[in-house]
């Protein structure tokens, strides 16, 4: 358990990448109508493309890694921490900060719930999938293959 505070402080840093404010601002344009908002605009799609590609491991969550606002987001962050995901290769996006992102990511991934995990720009799953892949070893295998975990301490 010694590793945890270390990791969580590293996550805190990773949670606010330089690109984040820019990303948020791209979503801050006013919505024209509720109907228009239901379709993924080219602009929103582009911004999400960028977000998904912003790090090898990307989590769309409610809240931030240090203060998740939902139990499912918290569980997902904990799993990534336990797996030893390299904070330098991880970015989290708080969907609660941006309504367009919150709705847009659901359509983008064709997945109706948050959190959502992407590894190498590929959708992996939501909380249930993350937890079950953690338990059956598939997640460790995937993260290792993608070389996104911190090297084991000697």
């Amino acid at each position, binding site marked *: 358990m010694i590793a945890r505070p270390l990791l969580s402080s590293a996550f805190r840093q990773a949670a606010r990448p330089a690109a984040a404010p820019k990303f948020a601002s791209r979503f801050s344009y006013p919505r024209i109508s509720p109907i228009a908002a239901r379709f993924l605009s080219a602009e929103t799609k582009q911004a999400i493309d960028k977000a998904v590609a912003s790090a090898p491991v990307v989590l769309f969550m409610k809240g931030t890694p240090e203060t998740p606002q939902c139990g499912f987001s918290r569980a997902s962050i904990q799993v990534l921490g336990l797996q030893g995901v390299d904070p330098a290769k991880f970015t989290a996006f708080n969907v609660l900060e941006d309504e367009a992102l919150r709705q847009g990511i659901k359509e983008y991934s064709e997945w109706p719930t948050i959190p959502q995990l992407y590894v190498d720009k590929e959708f992996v799953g939501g909380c249930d*999938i993350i937890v*079950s892949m953690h338990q059956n070893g598939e997640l460790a295998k995937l993260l290792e293959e993608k070389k996104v975990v911190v090297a084991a301490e000697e």
Partner: protein
Amino acid sequence: MASQTPLEDSLRSKITEALSPTFLEIHNDSHLHSHHKAMQGNTSAETHFRVVITSAAFEKKMQPARHRMVYALMKEEMAKEGGIHALQLRTRTPEEEVRQKEKEAAEKGVPIEGQEVENV
């Protein structure tokens, strides 16, 4: 009389019809989440569900594809205001269910039928 659990009914009937599950368990966990910020002002007693499904329809499909099948069935209920806020899913094929039970039994040290256990 209107059902007290319209969303749970809808989950059960849609999953049963579309997936012909050999095992289906629906848990309403809404009471565990009623204090959440996101639930403020929401008076629905049906916001959070945990569903365990065993179905042959999941064969040769990865987990995200299986979950999407269920989400697609419940699309309307999940999108509408005051509808389903969270849907936890455990999706298995009949074969996986058997394997999982065997594994759990082995971990617990419970003898599997037909196996002899030595007394220590």
